[in-house]
């Protein structure tokens, strides 16, 4: 039961991560490989604030979002000068730099040793250290983020983002502020990624840089693509699928060390298949629905 709750909490985290990345990758067409970096920035900000300054969760979270947002804003000013392949390589570079800072700035982040002893979340003197109440909190955040992103996607701004992802030059020609919209989308996406970061730090109570690697970024991007670009419900189902996949593999009797590799092979294959057939997400394989994949 405890383990099942743990899996549900993980699904909530990855739903948050995938949906926030979906804002920039799906709605706007900015495929980013720096998302685990922003996730990590959220987690590390929270960890440092709570262990060194003893601040509670409800102060840590806005601060983590603020710091993540400021860094993402500066980064986006640079990265968004490039397009397509170059943009992806640029975000990959940012991811490596962020990881490198987490891994090597011994004074601040304790490097590979990680930061232990992050306290559980407290609300009005009640410790949220049991899994059920933590799950409730995570689901609460998933609901809020889902609601925000859904509203954005239906708003005029969301339409602008969709126009950019479909034809950037045309969007610019009809007077949309493309560069500005891209910066807002990228920054907002990073701000939202700080939420699962902060939750993760308080939940696991120990963080180290290995949770925020390039591979993690690729994993989050895979969830978005498997769920379908611009499809928030799809992101949720893909997150659930990929989190539960190792459990399914273990269930059919595969040893843990092989299951870890098998999971990556399976999601890699799905990624290749989705791109190769030009379908938007895994669901279109089953629904026989013809749609567009990554937009030009």
């Amino acid at each position, binding site marked *: 039961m405890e383990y099942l709750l743990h899996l549900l909490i993980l699904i909530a985290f990855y739903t948050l991560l995938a949906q926030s990345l979906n804002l920039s990758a799906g709605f706007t*067409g900015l*495929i980013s490989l720096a998302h685990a970096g922003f996730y990590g920035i959220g987690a590390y900000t929270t960890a440092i604030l709570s262990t060194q300054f003893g601040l509670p969760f409800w102060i840590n979270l806005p601060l983590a979002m603020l710091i993540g947002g400021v860094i993402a804003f500066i980064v986006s000013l*640079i*990265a968004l*000068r*490039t*397009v*397509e*392949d*170059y943009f*992806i*390589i*640029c975000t*990959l*570079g*940012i991811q*490596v*730099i962020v990881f*490198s*800072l987490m*891994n*090597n700035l011994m004074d601040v982040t304790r490097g590979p040793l990680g930061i232990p002893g992050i306290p559980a979340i407290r609300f009005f003197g009640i410790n949220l250290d049991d899994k059920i109440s933590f799950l409730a909190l995570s689901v609460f955040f998933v609901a809020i983020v889902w609601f925000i992103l859904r509203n954005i996607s239906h708003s005029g701004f969301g339409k602008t983002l969709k126009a950019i992802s479909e034809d*950037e*030059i045309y969007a610019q020609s009809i007077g949309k502020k493309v560069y500005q919209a891209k910066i807002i989308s990228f920054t907002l996406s990073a701000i939202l990624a700080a939420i699962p970061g902060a939750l993760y730090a308080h939940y696991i109570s120990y963080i180290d840089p290995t949770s925020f690697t390039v591979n993690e970024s*690729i994993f989050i*991007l*895979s969830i978005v*693509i498997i769920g379908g670009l611009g499809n928030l419900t799809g992101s949720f189902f893909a997150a659930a699928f990929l989190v539960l996949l190792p459990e399914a593999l273990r269930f059919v009797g595969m040893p843990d060390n*092989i299951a870890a*590799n*098998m999971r*990556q*092979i399976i*999601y*890699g*294959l*799905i*990624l*290749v298949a989705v*791109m*190769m057939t*030009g379908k938007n997400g895994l669901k279109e394989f089953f629904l026989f629905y013809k749609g567009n*994949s*990554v*937009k*030009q």
Partner: protein
Amino acid sequence: MYNQLIIYVIQTTSIYLLIAASFSLIYYPAKFFHIAHAVIIASAAYLTFLFAKQLSLSFTLAIIAGIAGAVCIGLLCEILLYSPMRKRNAPALAYLIASIGLYIVLQNCISLYFGDDTKIIRTGEITVGNEIFGAYITNIQIITIFVSIALFITVNLLLQLTSIGKSIRAVSSNPELCNIYGINSNKIILIAFGIGSALAAVAGILSAMDTNMTPTFGFNLLLYGVVAMIIGGVGSTKGLIAGALLVATAQHLAAYYIDTKWMDAVTYVILILFLIWKPLGFSGKQLRKVEI
């Protein structure tokens, strides 16, 4: 001490140059970032290891088999994945994402079969190396420098002088027009994949013999090569040399004056600085966004 630093820089430059050349040979005609190239680099080294250590072939034969195997994988990537996508007119980013997926699949296959621990393909004792001007250089490092530079020159001559090379350059500049003039662009891209994979395979084996290997070592090498290519400016041989030299020098200076752990970060900081102030590299062509 500076002599030693210079030798390291030359050796690293030559490896990055070879990787950048192999990557750009595919990038120019095919026009997408073939991230799965990282696995070609690693698979050549691992196949050599398989043939030499586990099947106990002679080392020369194992290297040839390793390169041949890696070329086959490279060709299969093109035939089974990219070529059908091109027929379907997939958007540019789809290739990159598919190649990331392919990279994950193949890298994990290597991990499954060989394990994640460090493997050694070097044969014989580790020697101090030969002394030149008070610095030490191992035989492998000498071979690396000469083979890489020789291959780099050969490839450039091939691109400039032979008809295949001219076809590759023609497809790079305009595939549709090539098809009209009777050059089969798909065939040319396949040839580019073959040559590019062979070069990457050599780079992978040389690098693994110098510093040993893990299943992911190709990814870092490839990214340094890509950074060198972007810094140098796409489509320029001199730029490629300058880019590789700059990346290698910066990494070794960072390792010498700061710490080896900052080598990665320094590389990408340089990339980002270039993308801000000189997005076309030392001498590059226009980034493609609109084609009319």
